[in-house]
């Protein structure tokens, strides 16, 4: 019943209209490499820009501490996510997990966090792409002004078009450009010879301890999240990977290892080449670092590395936001119209198109730091729920009651650690963006009230639980 409609002819494969009673669903064509590209692609832009604001909050040493604390937080996220998602392999990722483990209201909230986090991140990337091309043209001395809005709109529409046309091409593109961006960081790292005594002396001379004390370390945690924000997006591909139980944990964990290496190398490059007062305010720290080496080839390479990382991130975010919205539409948490799949391209095409005008409107009307903060806050709310989710998952379905593709070690230490670090991060965000934090919380409370009082009556309650699991313990 579930076969795709393709016929071979003398001119190659052609698509034929479906017969009555046939079904269409997302295409299972991805491997672990695509999962890696989705997760790392979304995040790697944080190494090229954004992380360095942590330096401005508390100095280079505080930024390194924040980098590793956030690394622990995200390692916990990746481990917990891998275990649950290797069992709940459905589009929507954490939304589908929350729906099965906690309940509909939590699932609705998690889906909103996901949609907000990815859309705001996509918007941030589009803004950065505009800034980047504008400044590159200025650096080259080309007369005239690059129209930033044209770049923003082209980035959003162009990448949405890729997403509309099929997931395999979209994430293969992500794999290539993410790999190039990662290689550019590695090349710059080795170019400055971190093993040489001269470079290490320079680093030590630039390190100034903790200019704002331990509170600076806490404050820098806000932007330390930027090193890894979005790695949990790998789970959105759950319904499109060939072997979810293998590919998702493998892609997510290798992605996390890649990011830990890239984050530490990035910190070393930035902190050993620039004083913290400058580094803490730089818009494109790695590109600036490449300029400081005096090597023009490296400068151009890092420009393209930065640009590719920006595109990869926006590309992955469009993929993830549309899957989360599609999953909600399919369960009638949102109008079911969004739950449609394109018969030829096998993508959630209506959801992809729906986010184009929304992203463009935010990109041309909202400042970059606001969109970044909305994204971080939404992500943080999702991580907090993950810590609760794994406790309930293990309690309701103990290890031998259902098959798991991956079992994370040392439970419950990762979830307790995750909860503690999330609390620290909330405090860090509150220090810098308290009003936005409270505004976001209010938004989610109002949205929850709308869901409970209005929307939930449209949901077919029995149909939304699809996993072939035994009855949970205690029920």
């Amino acid at each position, binding site marked *: 019943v579930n076969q795709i409609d393709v016929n071979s002819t003398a001119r190659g494969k052609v698509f034929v209209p479906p017969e009555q009673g046939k079904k269409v669903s997302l295409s299972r064509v991805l491997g672990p490499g695509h999962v890696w590209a989705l997760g790392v692609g979304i995040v790697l832009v944080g190494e090229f820009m954004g992380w360095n604001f942590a330096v401005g909050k508390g100095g280079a040493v505080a930024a390194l501490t924040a980098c590793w604390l956030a690394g622990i937080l995200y390692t916990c996220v990746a481990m917990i996510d891998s275990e649950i998602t290797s069992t709940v392999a459905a589009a929507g990722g954490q939304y589908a997990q929350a729906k099965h483990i906690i309940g509909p209201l939590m699932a609705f909230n998690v889906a909103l966090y996901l949609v907000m986090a990815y859309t705001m991140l996509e918007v941030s990337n589009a803004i950065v792409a505009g800034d980047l091309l504008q400044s590159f043209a200025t650096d080259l001395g080309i007369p*005239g002004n690059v129209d930033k809005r044209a770049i923003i709109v082209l980035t959003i529409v162009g990448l949405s078009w890729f997403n509309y046309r099929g997931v395999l091409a979209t994430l293969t593109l992500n794999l290539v450009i993410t790999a190039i961006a990662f290689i550019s960081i590695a090349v710059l790292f080795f170019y400055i010879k971190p093993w040489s005594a001269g470079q290490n002396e320079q680093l030590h001379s630039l390190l100034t301890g903790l200019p704002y004390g331990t509170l600076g370390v806490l404050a820098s945690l806000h932007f330390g999240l930027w090193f890894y924000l979005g790695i949990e997006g790998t789970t959105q591909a759950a319904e499109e990977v060939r072997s979810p139980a293998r590919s998702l944990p493998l892609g997510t964990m290798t992605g996390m290892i890649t990011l830990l290496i890239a984050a530490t190398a990035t910190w070393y490059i930035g902190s050993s080449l620039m004083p913290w007062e400058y580094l803490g305010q730089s818009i494109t720290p790695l590109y600036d670092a490449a300029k400081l080496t005096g090597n023009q080839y490296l400068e151009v390479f890092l420009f393209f590395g930065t640009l590719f990382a920006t595109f990869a991130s926006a590309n992955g975010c469009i993929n993830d936001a549309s899957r989360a919205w599609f999953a909600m539409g399919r369960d009638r948490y949102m109008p079911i119209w969004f739950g449609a799949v394109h018969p030829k391209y096998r993508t959630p095409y209506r959801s992809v198109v729906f986010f184009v005008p929304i992203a463009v409107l935010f990109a041309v009307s909202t400042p970059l730091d606001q969109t970044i903060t909305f994204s971080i806050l939404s992500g943080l709310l999702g991580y907090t729920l993950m810590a609760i989710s794994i406790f309930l998952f293990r309690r309701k379905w103990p290890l031998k009651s259902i098959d798991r593709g991956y079992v994370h070690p040392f439970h419950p230490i990762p979830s307790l650690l995750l909860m503690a670090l999330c609390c620290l991060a909330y405090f860090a965000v509150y220090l810098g963006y308290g009003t936005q934090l409270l505004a976001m919380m209010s938004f989610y409370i109002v949205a929850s009230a709308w869901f409970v009082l209005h929307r939930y009556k449209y949901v077919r309650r029995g149909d939304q639980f699809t996993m072939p699991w035994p009855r949970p313990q205690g029920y």
Partner: protein
Amino acid sequence: VILLFNVAAWSIAGFLMALMLFDLIRVNKKYSEDYLLSSHEGDIVDTEEAERAEGLL
């Protein structure tokens, strides 16, 4: 040069958006809503068929 670049960026963006909207309307008209909405969470798609369709096999 920059003017040309700006015009090209707007034009390509407009063209791609029009392509997507045109295709969206075409697909919505051509297929029944029941078929387009027939995807259900937990359905397993035949992997081999999907790979063949994507040209992997």
